[in-house]
Every structure is written in C-alpha cells, then in structure tokens.
C-alpha cells in the first residue's frame, strides 16, 4: 500500500500539484432490520477505493477511483490535477492552507466487542425478542428493530509528509412501534428515533441498551398516544429530552458554526449562516448557562476520531461560553482565510468524496439540577421527547421540530400524555430563553448517523452530548 500511495502523491507532484493528499479507505458495513416478525433487511456490504486531492495553480482538484492499481492511481492523480487547472481558470484568489505539523500516527476506536465477530443468529435473536414484545399490542401495526455496524479502515498521506492510519468502528441499534387506528398513526421509538442510538464503539452498545426491557413501554406509549390529547397551540415553557436537544444543537448551533457556510461556500445547497464573522465574540447567542463545545475526543461520540481528513489532530473547541458565541469549526483553508488555527473538523463520508467542514461532537455541557429537580421546579409546561420531524431555514434561524410524544407538566409533576407536539422559534431568542439544564447524571452523547451536506451529497456521522433542558416562552402546537 505504501508504494501505491507514494506513486499517487509523486504523480500528483509531477503533474503540477503544489500540495496533494490521498485517502485510501475500505468500508465494511452490516445492516439488520426486522419488521413485523420478519427479516426486512439483512445485508453485508463493502466499498474500497481512493481519492486524491490536489492544489494546482492555487485551486483545488479531486478525483477518485475504485480501481486499486498502480496504473489507475497515476491516472487519477493526473485527472485530479487537470480538474484543479480547470478550477484555476475561474478563481479570484489562491487557496492558502494554514500550516500544520505533518503527523505520522494512528488511531483505533476503543471497542470491547467487535460486532463483525458476533454471530448473525445472536443479533437476530436479540432483535426478534424485542420486536415480538412490540407486536403484542394489537394496535401496533408496525413493529421494528434494527442494528447497524460500520467499520472504516483508512490511510491518509500527504505531500507534506503526513501518514495516518485510522480504524473507526461505529455501532447502532434501536426499536420502534407504530400504532395505527381510525385515521391516526403514532410512533414511539427507543432509545432514539431514526434507527436508535449510534456510537463509535463495538457490540457492547447493544447489551447496554436493554432493547427487550424497554419494548413494552415503547409499545404502550405508541398505543396510548392514539387516544391522547392533541398538543395545544400556545406559548409555554418546554423541557426537551436529551435526544431531541441533541438534534436542536445539531441544527441550530452545529451547522451555523461551520465556517464554510459562513464564508458562502455552501450557499446554493445547504445555505449560509446567521453567525457571520462580525458576530464572533460579540453575539450573546444563549443565556449564561449555555456552554457548547465541539469535541472530537470524547469516548463513544459518533463524531470521535484521532485525526480529521486533512491530518489535523482531533480536539476540543469552545463554541459558546456562558452564552457568548466564541468559536467556529473550520478547515485548513478557511482557518487561513480568517486568521484562525485549524481545529480538525474536515471530514469526508468516503474515499470518493472531498472532505468538508463537518460537525464532530457538538455538545451542550451539563448544568446543575438533576432532571427530577428540573421537572419539579416547573409549574406549567410540556416535556417533549424523541424527534419526529425537523426543519430550519437556510441561515439556521427559524426552526420547527416535532417530537413523538409530549407530557403536560403541572405544578412540578409530569401528567397527561400529549400527541403530535411540535415547537418553533428563532435560534438566538430560543437559546437565550434557556433557564435550566440538567446535570451530568442525565447527560448522554447521542449519535446522529445521517447528517447530509455538500454536492455531491455526503452523509456523515456526528455526536451531540446533551441532557434535558428547559426553555421559556416557546410557541408549541404550530398548525393546529
């Protein structure tokens, strides 16, 4: 492999590249999905290839191929340089990369059990057992359980002398019950929607989740929602559970702090950002208790790794400190452009894509009260659990989220179940209304396995540490 990689890098230099990097990646994935007592999907897949990124005449080119051969790596390097030359024909300024120390290193996700060594029948047994419990309620018309595993084996090397090997393991699992009756459909899932909980780690995730033990509650709640009261339309206090708050952080803080969006590089597709450069260290984006970091070093975070796809070491960056907006996530190019230091957030979803600025683990740090104290301290409000729908404008200001379930809070106690809850707001106003964040006892690093960005589209895995938090004067029940 060393010979193959240097052949590619040297070819790029000989075709005119002033900088080049190469990533050779092999993916192995397994998806298992059970529905209504049958295996809906069981599939193994693999993908192997390389991509070469070049700078020629101050502009970027990238070419990739699934053909791992000496001839192909030279041809691909040449194509990458031709593409860069075409980019240079329409450039306003040269790309400059913030300097970094070229690293020789390696990283491996710490795991206890390699999921690819666990027999399929063991996995199926756990999934069928949990799924069968969901089906016991007659109103549950669709019962589902699933597991997903991804192993990524990657080498990154650059003409600056970097050589980094990484082995990343990701695991996910969850259950979901869909109750349908008289024109109404209600869904409950555990431990999260959209496939459950995802971590960097091994099969130990699955035994820790206790899918079977939670199945009866999940099914009962889905059925209970069919007869529950509609979430009213009003302005009220809300408490978001950690998993919903994780997506709230992702959409309204994580995306707007991506420096490529801020600089207009994603304008036509994902959009730009309200966090323009003049807002840095100036905008009070949240209340005093709001502290947010981007941290690729935390254990089990779905956005944890050793080095990003430019060879920058994983690190922790302050994003919001006591409510003040203090930091972006960046690339070597955008760091140089704005006078910052690269903070290791360039990630590609495969060998066939260029790295983009992507969230790592963007975390809302825990507060002081326990979750029970937070509820007990709330006279009137709604507790919202588990994401159902999400939408936010292209500068990340106006958002609207729906959750699977809501609970009325009266005089410090959770009471009746509410169905079809949703809430809306404007990002800085929302975070400034935060007046309670639960402590570390209920702080979980939630995995978001499906964050889309870029053209061609890239889907990346991100993590978000969060515990339940409370917000005042929020509009709920939109469109009722």
């Amino acid at each position: 492999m060393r010979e193959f990689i240097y052949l590619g890098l040297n070819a790029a230099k000989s075709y005119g590249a002033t900088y080049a990097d190469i990533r050779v990646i092999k993916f192995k994935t397994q998806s298992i999905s059970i529905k209504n007592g049958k295996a809906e999907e069981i599939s193994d897949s693999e993908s192997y290839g390389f991509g070469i990124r070049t700078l020629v005449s101050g502009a970027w080119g990238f070419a990739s191929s699934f053909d791992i051969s000496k001839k192909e790596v030279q041809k691909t390097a040449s194509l990458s340089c031709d593409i860069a030359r075409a980019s240079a024909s329409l450039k306003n300024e040269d790309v400059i990369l913030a300097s970094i120390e070229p690293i020789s290193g390696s990283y491996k996700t710490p795991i206890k059990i390699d999921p690819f060594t666990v027999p399929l029948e063991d996995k199926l047994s756990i999934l069928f057992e949990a799924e069968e419990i969901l089906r016991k309620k007659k109103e549950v018309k669709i019962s589902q359980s699933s597991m997903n595993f991804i192993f990524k084996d990657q080498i990154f090397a650059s003409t600056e002398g970097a050589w980094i090997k990484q082995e990343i393991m990701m695991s996910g699992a969850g259950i979901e019950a869909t109750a349908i009756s008289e024109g109404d459909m209600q869904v409950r899932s555990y431990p999260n929607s959209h496939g459950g909980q995802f971590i960097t780690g091994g099969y130990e995730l699955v035994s820790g989740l206790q899918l079977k033990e939670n199945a009866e509650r999940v099914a009962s709640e889905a059925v209970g929602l069919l007869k529950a009261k509609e979430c009213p339309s009003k302005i009220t206090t809300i408490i978001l559970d950690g998993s919903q708050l994780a997506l709230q952080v992702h959409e309204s803080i994580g995306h707007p702090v991506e420096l490529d969006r801020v600089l207009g590089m994603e304008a036509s597709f994902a959009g730009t950002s309200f966090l323009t450069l003049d807002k840095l260290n100036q905008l009070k984006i949240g209340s005093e208790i709001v502290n947010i970091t981007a941290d690729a070093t935390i254990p089990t975070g779905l956005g944890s790794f050793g080095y990003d796809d430019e060879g920058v070491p994983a690190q922790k960056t302050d994003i919001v400190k006591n409510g003040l907006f203090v930091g972006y996530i960046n690339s070597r190019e955008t760091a140089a452009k704005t006078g910052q230091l690269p903070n290791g957030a360039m990630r590609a979803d495969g060998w066939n894509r260029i790295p983009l600025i992507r969230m790592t683990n963007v975390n809302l740090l825990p507060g002081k009260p326990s979750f029970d104290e937070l509820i007990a301290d709330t006279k009137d409000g709604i507790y919202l659990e588990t994401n159902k729908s999400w939408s936010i404008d292209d500068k990340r200001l106006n958002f609207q989220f729906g959750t699977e379930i809501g609970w009325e809070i009266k005089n410090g106690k959770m009471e009746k179940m509410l169905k079809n809850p949703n809430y809306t707001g404007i990002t800085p106003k929302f975070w400034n209304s935060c007046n309670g964040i639960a402590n570390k006892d209920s702080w979980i690093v939630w995995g978001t396995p499906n964050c889309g960005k870029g053209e061609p589209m890239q889907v990346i895995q991100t993590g978000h540490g969060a515990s339940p938090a409370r917000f005042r004067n929020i509009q709920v029940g939109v469109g009722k």
Partner: protein
Amino acid sequence: MISEKKMGKILKEILEMSPADQTEALLISQNSALTRFANNQIHQNVAEKNAKLSIRVIKNKRTGTASTNILGKKSIKEVLEKALKIAGNVSPDPDFKSLPKKKKCKKMELFSKNTAEYQPIDRAKDVSVLISKANQKELNAAGALSTGEITIGIANSLGVFEITSLTEADINTVFMSSNSSGYVDSYAKEVRKIDFHKLADIASEKALRSIDPIAINPGSYTVILEPAAVADMLTYLAFCGLGALAYQEGRSFISGKLGGKITGENITIWDDGTSPNTLRMPFDFEGTPKQKVMLIENGVAKNVVYDSYTAHKEDKESTGHALPAPNIYGPQPSNLFLKNGDYSVDEMIASTKKGILVTRFHYTNMEDPLKTMLTGMTRDGTFLIENGEISCGIKNLRFTQNILKALSNVEMISKETELKQAFLGFCRAPTLKISKFNFTGVTEF
C-alpha cells in the same frame, strides 16, 4: 467504465455460479463529475469512478443480500457466499413468492456522448457564463454543474437480463445580493441543451427583483408555487404514501381511500418512467419494464406503485418501481407528473389581488404522513403579489400545510411544466395557484 459487454459477462457468471433457488445480480458502474462554485469562483471540483455489485439470493423463501465494489473473481465469489450465508440464517418469508420473470423492455436512447465525454474545462466554461453574468450585475453566484454516465445491468435466474447506459447533466445556481437571492435549475440528458445564458438571466432577475425584502405577517394566503416548490411538495406526498408498502402497512394517506376523492378535481398525478418528458429508464432495479401508473385522476385516488414483492402480496403484477435490494422503503414513484392546465404564469399573477409567489422550498419535512402535514421554508425568490402584479420581495416564511388540502384548493394550473429533481428520481410539474395556504412563521431575511 465497465462496458455493457463486460457487465453482461459478470452478471452471467454470477447466475451460473449461484446454487440458490433464485438469484439476482445488480451491477451499476458510473463515472461522474461535479464542478461547484461560490463567491463567483470554482471552489470544489470533483470526479468519481465507481461501481457497485449487489447479489440477492433466495433459498427456501429465505433472502440474503450482499454487495461490494471490488469486482475481482475472488471477491464476487465471496459476496455470493455472504449472501447465501445470510439467507441460511433467516426464517422463511411466507409472503415472498418469486423474483420477477422476464418481460420485454422498450429500447430507449438515453446516452449522450457529449455529456459522457464532458471535460473539467468544459464545465468551467459553462460555469463562467453564470459567473460573468453575476459579476456584471454585481451579484454573488453559487451552484453546481454535474455531468456523468452510468451503466446499469440487472439479471436474475428467471431470465431477466437488462443492461442500459445513460447520461445526465444538471445545474443549479443561486444568485445573491446582500439581502436577496434568486434560484434556477435545469436537467438534461445532453449537457449542451442546457441554456446557461437563459438560466443566468432568470437567477439574476429574481435576485435583483427581491432586493430589500419587506416582512409580512404569517397567515393564510393565496400562493403561486413555481415548479420547484410544487415538485418538492409532490415528492414528499409520493414518498409518504404512493408506494405499495406504505399502502399495505396502512401508513399511507391513501390506505382505505382508493377510489375516493382526495384532492380537487383539477388534480391528476401519474408516474411514467418511460416518458420522453422526463429523464427516463426502461426498467426498474429488478429488471421489470417501467409502466405508466395513474396515481390520482381528477382528484380521485387511483393506484399505488408496486415492485414484485408487494405486487405478489395482492396477486398483482409489478408496475416496475422497485428500488435496489435490500430496500426498506418499498417501491417508489420516481418519474412523477402533475397534469398541466391552461394558464400562463402571467395570467395567474394578474388574477391575484393579494398573494405570495414562491420560487422554491427549503428543508421540507413531513410532520404527519397520514395527514400529509408538511412544514418547510420558502427560499431564493419569495415575492408579494398585490393587485395583479409582483410588488416586492418579502422575507422568507415558514409554512405548515396539509398537502392534500392544498391540492384541493388549486385555483389555476399553468400550461408550461418544468422537470425538477426529486429525492428519488424526477418530477415534472407546472406552476400552481393555491388559495388558503398556511404560513405559520417568518424568518429574519
């Protein structure tokens, strides 16, 4: 690229090698390239050469699927063995009857040599047309131009053996001032049929016309939705309920309502992957010929689309709407059409006393699939119509709207239609004038 001849040889070898009761091999090979621009310069510029082989085997009604992009003989054999091993571990599925049998597919010319051979410098020249216009108008252009070729081969042990090659080019761009923007896109088999000058004019006109937008209050308005917004809405409608799996599971808005009126009588929606008015395909990902399927006719729910699995459950024939196996989403419409009307967009605007013209939606998402409750934002060209004329740009609004209700309140439909990309395939849509459309929020720009 893997040639059609080589692809045929690989597929044949897999079928011969497999000991399963039934075997299906799907091989997709592609060369694609995309030039991305922002701030009036190219900033990302990429190319990809890839392939994917998926093997599905059935033994005693037990299914296993495995895939790879490593296409050596050893690797292909290992993938087949993986699929067989998976099949050996699962219980039989009583609802599985058979993979589809061979049916004759129409021959279609889907390939453009120009598009397949388009070079990075060709794409840069096209992009320069857009950037020059933006510079001339003191606007900021961003967007992406992609070109590519793809060869799809599908074969099964019941005699299905189809291979086709096609090309695709698409461009989208947003032109921006400091407080306004205008969007346009275009899709074609032949890249040289895209009129970049015309697209630049449309995007710049929208951006300039919406400078200094005013804020209006959310509420119920008459809207004129341009084809991109209509296509977005229809795509969600189709994904949530016009496939047989959602219908059979009772989670479709159409479940129990076939034959009933669900929209206004002026609404007719169908899917037709064979039409020359879309980017078409002769067969689906099981090798079944694509059929035209009437979904909603004059407001009445007529049909959903099927693949072989869902069709067999109702003793029907597949309509040619299978996605690649394994597929948890079921069959899906991928070439939607909404029937056009008689009006010009100018007539639709002229007939509107007060309303909102929407260029496109952003980040739409279904809040309640059974009730077709959709939310999303307007984006890149939202205008106020007063007394039959576009009076000014307005700040973007959030809508929260029942789609079927919106399609029951369509007052006018344009004669002209446009082809738009949907998240699964394409949608050809006209402009719609709709009354009582619910905007529930406003943003700051």
